[in-house]
């Protein structure tokens, strides 16, 4: 591995990311999978870093899942997106940041389509006006939320209470970074670091003290793949993709996986349970799995937030071994207490995959 070679490519894929004043749109599924992640994004941006991030309850899905499942016409998706842009315009913002990777890919694809075919944009403006009497300006800048945390990575590092260092060995933690397919595989220039060797998550890990692992199936899909998972008969493809990735990363003994996509952390987390049950195999140390975290969760841990306040109890794979390595104290009894101290009840423990 020639690290300087990667640096050369990263230098070619720098993206202009304004520092402040963003219109934020959430993901459809992240709020159900790991709801603490989006909450912590706004918490860090607004309250830790003092930035202006606006969100509105009136925004909807971007239509991405239906679009990639081929169940919705592209014009409909574009009109939904046009409405989101209208909300941004009405709120007085010009910079648009999406929490979801697929949404980000959809927005990028739509803007590129309009740039290349202005008559399509004209047609969509007409459709939006007929549908809801709204008008819009296209965003001046489009970013994925991980672009913003990447931009703020050094500010976060400066405020860090914990570094990504194994306190038992003093060595940097070994981190697998997994990028959502729709981040830059469609438009390499839209992602920090390009499509082949994206830097957006590597930059965070490096800034916070960890070491990034480059393993053979690094580029491979997590296994979600809409048509793999949403069609029940195809779910075997989904888990077999995840299995391929874990088999590939296993020799490197990663301490955890960081992701920037709604589906990736969920499927790489949950399928470890399925692989353990079906194959009897686990990939972490001592029968545990490899924790899979969102970049917001990692940033929150680095900043010293309570693991249970940021929603880490919603992960299938136990995060406690990672917290121990980081030296983060936690109350095991508080793991399944809600914010109002209400008992959330304990989940049934799996048979093979060791959990706390």
């Amino acid at each position, binding site marked *: *591995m*020639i690290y300087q*070679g*990667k640096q*050369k*490519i990263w230098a070619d894929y720098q993206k202009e990311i304004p520092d402040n004043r963003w219109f934020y749109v959430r993901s459809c599924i992240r709020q159900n999978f790991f709801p603490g992640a989006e909450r912590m994004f706004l918490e860090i941006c607004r309250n830790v870093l003092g930035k202006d991030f606006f969100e509105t309850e009136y925004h909807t899905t971007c239509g991405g899942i239906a679009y990639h499942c081929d169940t919705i016409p592209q014009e409909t998706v574009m009109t939904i997106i046009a409405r989101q842009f209208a909300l941004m315009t009405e709120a007085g913002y010009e910079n648009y940041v999406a929490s979801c990777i697929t949404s980000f890919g959809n927005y990028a694809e739509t803007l590129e389509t309009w740039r290349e075919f202005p008559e399509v944009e004209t047609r969509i403006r007409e459709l939006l006006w007929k549908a809801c009497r709204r008008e819009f300006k296209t965003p001046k800048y489009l970013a994925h939320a991980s672009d913003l945390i990447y931009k703020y990575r050094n500010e976060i590092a400066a405020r860090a209470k914990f570094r990504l260092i194994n306190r038992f060995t003093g060595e940097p933690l070994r981190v697998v970074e997994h990028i959502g397919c729709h981040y830059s595989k469609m438009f390499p220039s839209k992602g920090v670091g*390009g*499509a*082949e*060797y994206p830097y957006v998550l590597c930059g965070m890990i490096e800034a916070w003290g960890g070491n990034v692992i*480059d*393993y*053979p*199936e*690094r*580029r491979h899909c997590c296994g979600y793949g809409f048509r793999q998972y949403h069609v029940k008969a195809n779910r075997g493809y989904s888990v077999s993709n995840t299995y391929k990735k874990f088999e590939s990363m296993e*020799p*490197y003994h990663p301490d955890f996986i960081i992701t920037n996509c709604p589906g990736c952390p969920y499927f790489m987390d949950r399928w470890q349970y399925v692989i353990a049950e079906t194959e009897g195999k686990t990939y972490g140390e001592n029968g545990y799995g490899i924790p899979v975290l969102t970049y917001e969760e990692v940033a929150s841990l680095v900043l010293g937030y309570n693991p249970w306040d940021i929603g880490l109890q919603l992960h299938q794979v136990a995060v406690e071994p990672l917290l121990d390595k980081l030296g983060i104290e936690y109350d095991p009894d508080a793991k399944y207490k809600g914010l109002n101290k209400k008992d959330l009840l304990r989940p049934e423990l799996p048979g093979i995959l060791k959990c706390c």
Partner: protein
Amino acid sequence: MKENIVIIGGGIAGMEAASQLLDLGYKPIIIEKSDHLGGHVAEWNCLFPDMTPAGDVVKNLVTRSAGANIFLNTEISFVNKLKDSYNIMLSNGISIITKIILVTTGFSLFDASKKEEYGYGIYDQVITNKDLEHWFNTGDDKRVGDCGMNAVGFVHCVGSRDEKARNSQCSKVCCITAVKQAIEIKQKFPEAMVYCFYMDLRMFGKKYEDFYISAQRDYGIRFIRGRVSEVSENIDGKVIVKAEDTLSGKPVKVTLDLLVLMAGMVCCKDSTKVANMISLPVDSDGFLKSRDNVTGIIEAPKEGIFYAGACTGPKTVPETLAEARAAALNVHLYINRMK
């Protein structure tokens, strides 16, 4: 004869043209930016299809063109157009007035790191055709030979016929060069499995087809029709290649000790620089545009400017030498017409 003839580029085209002009009684001037003559061929080990030592070809040309005025380590600073001639100012401070310029600036090798998915410059065991040829010449490259060499792969058309790389042209020589290098690897490492990943094979030249058949029949080299989709590295530092075998309709994944990228020919920056100085047209592929691609490939659209070799597009060594001889004859006829 007194007429100044300036040859820009001291590769095989420039040297061959110079030697022909010397034979015709002229005293041509060769301007070469590097410290030696021979261009790309000087860095090659041997040439297809007869495994002719490249060093012998270059040595012979250097001997035959030695009578020319040769400026090494010299670049063209600028060119002024005079009434019926050109004033060429060289980087060594010498100024030459001439009515005849022969451009033999050749090509550049495609920068294989631009095809990011192949990992050149990222993964240690990914090299180019030029790197391998350097190893054949000198044995000086730890990436080759030290790693067991149980399996070696060649990727054809790297940066050629590739819209994404903005090079739609075929580089002509890569198919047969891959066959040649694959055979040479097999000769040096008989136990190695050797794979060639290709789009299609263009075996147009004399004995090329025989060479290709021999590679399969006599050396057991496996030709897989399909493009490589991605290259990565495993924990042992070996290269993992994913491709599609379009003939069997199946994905292929192989672990290799070495992957060789057949980097193609692209327009040389020096050609573009010269074109800008003399206001010569550049073709859509970036190479210099000839007066006519059928009957006037060695003539520029401008009076007194001639081309030879790969400055107008990818060429083999025999094609380059033939063009250089033709260009020398055209220069001679042009001078005669001027009298």
